[in-house]
């Protein structure tokens, strides 16, 4: 993938620019794409209702072969593969909708299908050569082969650059050695995207750099370890994968030597959208089941649905879900454009959706009362299944750092070393700090012109806080320069500010489309949702902004430190 001069909505926000053209109108699928999607979702829903039994999958800790086979037959293993390689060339939006539908029924199934294509073979799709794609994609498209993504090692989790696996060039092949852990689909896969350190020449010097490889099961020296015993997504396969002197032909190099970290980051950028859409599916099921219960269950002589604290939870679940959905599918639409950088937006969608689905499930479970705690109902299982989302494909902490740091570096950067550093701001921020200070200049403030006037209060807030974000960014960079990387409290606030701005914009855009398509009356609930979400969001932004200067950060650090010192409850 060439370095393109790509626009980014969120990076532009850091300059105080609201790039309306990227987010209006809301990118709903239309025409034939929408019709096809409808048929696909109908069929997937029907299949899941008949064949996917979430409770049994959880208890037996496996997905029946019949289900995996059925999903393959439906074509769900090759959704995003181009037709030239026997796939179905679905858009990201359609793909995400299918993952969402699967997640309405069972997270293990969604993670298996998602692990295969969101990350398993995504590197091949993005960086593979024509020959490589011809060779592997058709088999992966039909599900004959399943794929897995092997980045994490016991010693390298969030800091993936610190991975220890090595690949040493020996003539026409590399000798691959290393231990990967927690590989999704490890027990099912025939195709592994593996990251290992190789020696490369950097300006005449030999340096260790991460390189991506495609490894297939038939290569000698691969050991699949035992299945992990997990809190949730128990039906999905998670195993160690150990490589001992595996001969990987040079043809199986994925992308350029030394470019592996970029491969991994690009894969995860779009992979994260699958997770976000999965959260939407889980949230929908939680709303449906808890609302049905609230109407049926009577206490104090009335259905509990009539009590305000129950109604509050119902409304909150809906607002959260709508916001998650709006951000996720906006971002999927950006991905489908093919000409924009959506890395911040996908990170925001992932962090926001995975945090919010947890709240939704918590609300739903509370509405269920004691039943929610029982295995007979799906809520405790959905809760266990959802917890992983905040951890994998980049923990929400690491992604918040990424959102803030990538934004602080200024948008659309073309300088070569800067472009390189943007791939990995966590390691390369220092050299950029001076540059960033120059970049953020004084600003006039952008306007939103395409939102419906009924939402004026809301979009004016976006304008207002879009002016404050660059001020905040400039302030922290001037104050801390390179040390900003260590100021995680502040970075977290900045990440939250830009996330709230983005999600607000997504909701406003979507509700504007709803008003245009259905009229004000039919869009009434959506207008209410928009107002509610934005009301909470701008107050959070204001608070986060104020807390850049006035906060208890130091006290919190002190509490943490004294606890760490004692290595126990400190009082």
């Amino acid at each position, binding site marked *: 993938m060439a370095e393109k001069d790509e626009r980014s909505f969120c990076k532009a926000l850091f300059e105080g620019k609201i790039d309306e053209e990227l987010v209006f109108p809301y990118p709903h699928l239309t025409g034939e794409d929408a019709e096809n999607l409808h*048929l696909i979702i109908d069929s997937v829903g029907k299949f899941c209702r008949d064949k996917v039994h979430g409770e049994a999958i959880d208890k037996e800790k496996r997905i029946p072969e019949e289900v995996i086979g059925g999903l393959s037959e439906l074509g769900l293993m090759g959704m995003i593969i181009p037709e030239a390689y026997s796939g179905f060339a*679905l858009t990201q939006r359609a793909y995400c909708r299918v993952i969402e539908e699967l997640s309405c029924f069972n997270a293990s199934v969604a993670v298996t299908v998602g692990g295969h294509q969101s990350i398993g073979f995504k590197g091949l799709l993005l960086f593979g050569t024509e020959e490589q794609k011809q060779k592997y994609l058709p088999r992966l498209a039909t599900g004959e082969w399943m794929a897995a993504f092997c980045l994490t090692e016991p010693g390298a989790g969030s800091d993936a650059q610190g991975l220890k696996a090595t690949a040493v060039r020996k003539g026409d092949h590399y000798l691959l050695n290393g231990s990967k852990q927690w590989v999704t689909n490890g027990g099912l896969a025939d195709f592994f995207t593996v990251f290992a350190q190789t020696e490369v020449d950097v300006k005449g010097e030999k340096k260790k750099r991460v390189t991506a490889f495609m490894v297939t099961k038939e290569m000698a020296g691969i050991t699949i370890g035992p299945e992990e015993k997990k809190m949730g997504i128990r039906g999905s396969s998670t195993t160690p994968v150990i490589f001992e002197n595996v001969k990987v032909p040079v043809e199986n190099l994925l992308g350029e030597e030394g470019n592996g970290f970029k491969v991994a980051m690009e894969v995860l950028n779009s992979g994260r959208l699958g997770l976000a859409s999965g959260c939407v599916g889980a949230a929908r099921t939680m709303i449906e089941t808890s609302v049905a219960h609230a109407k049926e269950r009577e206490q104090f002589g009335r259905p509990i649905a009539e009590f305000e604290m129950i109604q509050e939870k119902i409304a909150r679940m809906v607002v959260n879900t709508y916001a998650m959905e709006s951000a996720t599918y906006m971002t999927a639409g950006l991905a489908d454009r093919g000409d924009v950088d959506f890395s911040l937006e996908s990170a925001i969608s992932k962090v926001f959706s995975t945090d919010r689905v947890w709240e939704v499930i918590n609300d739903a479970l509370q509405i269920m009362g004691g039943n929610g705690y029982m295995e007979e109902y799906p809520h405790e299982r959905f809760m266990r299944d959802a917890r992983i989302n905040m951890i994998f494909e980049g923990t929400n902490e690491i992604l918040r750092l990424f959102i803030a740091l990538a934004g602080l570096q200024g948008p659309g950067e073309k300088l070569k070393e800067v472009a390189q550093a943007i791939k990995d701001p966590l390691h390369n921020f220092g050299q950029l700090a001076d540059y960033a200070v120059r970049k953020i200049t004084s600003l006039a403030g952008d306007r939103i012109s395409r939102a419906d006037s009924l939402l004026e209060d809301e979009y004016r807030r976006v304008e207002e806080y879009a002016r404050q974000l660059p001020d905040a960014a400039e302030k922290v960079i001037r104050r801390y320069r390179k040390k900003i990387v260590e100021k995680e409290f502040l970075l977290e606030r900045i990440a939250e500010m830009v996330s709230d701005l983005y999600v607000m914009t997504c909701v406003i855009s979507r509700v504007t489309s709803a008003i245009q398509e259905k009229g004000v009356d039919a869009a009434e609930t959506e207008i209410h949702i928009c107002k509610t979400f934005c009301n909470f969001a701008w107050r959070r932004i204001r608070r986060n902004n104020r807390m850049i200067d006035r906060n208890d950060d130091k006290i919190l650090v002190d509490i943490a430190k004294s606890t760490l010192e004692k290595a126990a409850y400190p009082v």
Partner: protein
Amino acid sequence: MNIIVCMKQVPDTAARIKIKGDGKGIETSGVSYVVNPYDEYAVEEALRLKEKAGGEVVVISLGPDRATEAIRTCLAMGADRGVHLKDPSFEDADPFVTAQLLAKALSGMDYDLILCGKQAVDDNACFVGPALAEGLGIPQATVITKLTLAEDAKSVTVEREVEGGREVLQLPLPALVTAQKGLNEPRYASLPGIMKAKKKEIKVMDAAAVGVSGDDVKQKIETVSLSPAPERTAGKIIPGEPSEAVKELVRLLKEEAKAL
């Protein structure tokens, strides 16, 4: 083997149905529609026959614009082409008129076997299949659970469940049968199927193309009123010791429910 499947698009069985203000129809906004489940058995059986004996499966449906989607679903399952009977004057077609319109449309077509669902789950009339067979003057068997094509492809043998047993019938072709649950397990429309369906033809026939006008399409039956099923009332839990509770239960069954 040329097989025709008559299919109706109906509101999703899981949809919450609201009755319109005039009490004579249902509120259609916000309702999602599906292929009538019994018609899915018919489509599946047609596809299996075709896979064995070759030929063509044509799906015909009478309905408004939205019915195209249901036809597409059948094409995505594997049917070869669709015929959509669509005309403003068809909108109020009752089962009798529907059967007549289908008969008219089919009379110009070449078919060996016609498959219908045993009933449409929206109006539960169980009428169109039999009336269509009458209109075409061909033999029929209703509510079948098994179908076998003769070696010479000149007849079909079907099984029907009847009170306390099973009935086996043989019908010379061309014939019409209506499908009951249990006939088969319908396949799911797959992504490859959906992509292929894009390129398949759906022929639209309006009143002129079917060759009908005015009185031909005038409904013979008038809907007087529709009303929702009564709300399910809350259950009752009888408290107390089992021996006492049983007594109370028997009393309630006798006196209130009048079941004993």
